[in-house]
């Protein structure tokens, strides 16, 4: 019974923790401009992260080692360092976006300018990383993130023609007033939002933090294969709400407030409060994950002791790195760059960095010396290879499309 409860908790946490500021912005923006004609990109992205998160979780359970540890081993120090530099840049950019997201959500709750919240948010993020136990951290913000279910309820309340919605998803048609290049640019953006590199570092390092053993592979799989797709459904609900309320009004999403507007229209004040809670939980949780991931990646490359499973003074360089990352993220938001724009860039650059992260995982999960009998089967390899091809296509076309469409104008 206790085991069932713990698996259930894990799944709920995975659902609530799936969405971050990138998913919030990307799905609402795409819904408001393209309806559900790009839902396929979200679906493919969610499927992709499921495949690779399962692999990296399995690797962590079997080897008790983090992703970046193994990236350096398999790719060598030079390519590994390049990988580290690129991953750090993208993760730091994402961290900055998440901190900005928390501040924006708090602004919506209080009408106090978001910049004033930024140092407080930074301090809170660092404090939680410093003191709160890893599993508590995961569970609390994961469960609070379930408040975003209010978007599903709002979608229901808006009483759409479900057949029509399903048709839009299954038979995508690009809107006439948008160009083909913009359409595919946003497909890549959705893809990058669903498959952010830091999730893999975090998931595998988290597995080591929680001392996963091979017997925990089943639980990890339940989290991934049930939790992540349901989190993906939340993303689709956000897009659907935007498609139903914002698209007909000619509203294009460029603020966090617009993301929550359909909930207000459909359900009212209380539901909107839940949406804000969901925004705060999702972005704060993701801020914790990205902050920790900068430490995980760097420490694992250099072989330093890392993790919250030891006392801070036993992982001094790791914690110092996280502190530096928090300072950098806070400084980044305080430049008054629009956090929504920062978010949009972070997801596109995530798409560019994806092959660097996912290729090594596929290689390691295939290595029988590391994995023993838990090595990739044909299904995992087949899916992994297919997704790797998709990832490379997305990575290669991301920057050119960004330049051609002037970042989606």
């Amino acid at each position, binding site marked *: 019974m206790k085991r069932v409860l713990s698996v259930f908790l894990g799944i709920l946490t995975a659902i609530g923790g799936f969405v971050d500021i990138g998913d919030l912005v990307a799905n609402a923006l795409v819904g408001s401009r393209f309806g559900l004609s790009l839902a396929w990109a979200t679906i493919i992205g969610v499927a992709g992260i499921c495949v690779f998160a399962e692999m990296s979780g399995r690797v962590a359970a079997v080897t008790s080692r983090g992703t970046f540890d193994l990236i350096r081993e398999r790719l060598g120090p030079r390519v590994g360092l390049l990988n580290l530099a690129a991953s750090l840049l993208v993760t730091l950019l994402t961290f900055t976006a998440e901190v900005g997201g928390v501040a924006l959500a708090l*602004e*919506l*709750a*209080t*009408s106090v300018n978001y910049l004033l919240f930024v140092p407080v948010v930074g301090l809170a993020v660092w404090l939680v990383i410093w003191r709160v136990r890893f599993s508590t951290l995961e569970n609390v913000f994961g469960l609070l993130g379930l408040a975003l279910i209010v978007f599903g309820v709002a979608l229901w309340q808006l009483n759409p023609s479900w057949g029509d919605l399903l048709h839009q998803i299954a038979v995508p048609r690009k809107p006439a*007033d948008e160009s083909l290049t913009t359409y595919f640019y946003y497909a890549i953006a959705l893809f990058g939002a669903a498959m952010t590199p830091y999730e893999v570092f975090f998931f595998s390092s988290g597995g080591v933090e929680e001392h996963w053993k091979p017997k925990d592979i089943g639980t990890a799989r339940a989290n991934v294969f049930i939790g992540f797709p349901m989190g993906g459904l939340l993303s689709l609900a956000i897009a659907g709400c935007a498609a139903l*309320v914002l698209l007909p*009004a*000619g*509203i*294009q999403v*460029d*603020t966090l*407030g*617009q993301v*929550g*507007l359909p909930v*207000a*229209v459909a*359900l*009212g*004040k209380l539901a*909107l*409060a839940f949406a*804000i809670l969901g925004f705060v939980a999702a972005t704060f949780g993701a801020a914790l994950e990205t902050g920790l991931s900068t430490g995980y990646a760097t420490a694992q490359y250099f072989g330093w002791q890392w993790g919250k499973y030891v006392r801070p003074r036993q992982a001094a360089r790791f914690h110092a790195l996280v502190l530096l990352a928090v300072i950098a993220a806070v400084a980044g938001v305080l430049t008054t760059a629009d956090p929504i724009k920062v978010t949009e860039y972070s997801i596109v650059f995530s798409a560019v960095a994806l092959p660097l992260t996912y290729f090594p995982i596929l290689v390691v999960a295939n290595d029988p010396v590391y994995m023993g009998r838990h090595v990739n089967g044909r299904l995992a390899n087949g899916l992994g290879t297919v997704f790797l091809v998709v990832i490379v296509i997305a990575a290669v076309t991301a*920057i050119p499309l*960004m*330049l051609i469409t*002037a*970042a989606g*104008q």
Partner: protein
Amino acid sequence: MTRALGLAVAATVLLLAGCVAPAPTTAAYEAKAGMTADAAVSEVRTALVATDAYLHGRMGSAYLETMLVAAEEALGSVQDTFDSVQPPAAAGADSLRDTLDPLLDDAGSAVTELRIAARRDRDVTLRTTAGDLTGTADELEAFGKQHR
């Protein structure tokens, strides 16, 4: 390789800063005017939907204020960007500007009024200003459709 990367970054930054050059042809200027109108419609309708939700008790005042402040800023920036474009020396271009600018002015001042009324909890003012703004929104939308 570093130089190529630096060039790519520079190109990205330039393109994305939306570096403003004078629109060379009337057609390009018309397209720019259309896009400006669409962007303005987005901000104005955001303000309207939010205000309407608030007046029906479906949104708190903090949320409304935050959205109105954002819409006001965005609208101002949309108008500034459009005005900074040098119109080509054709009669068509000037008439475009003469139609669009007043609409943008009306929209901007109405959203400002909404923002002030929201902060002061003046529901009646909100209602009447929103009513006027709806007309402006429709005109902007028609302009945008016409000059796409």
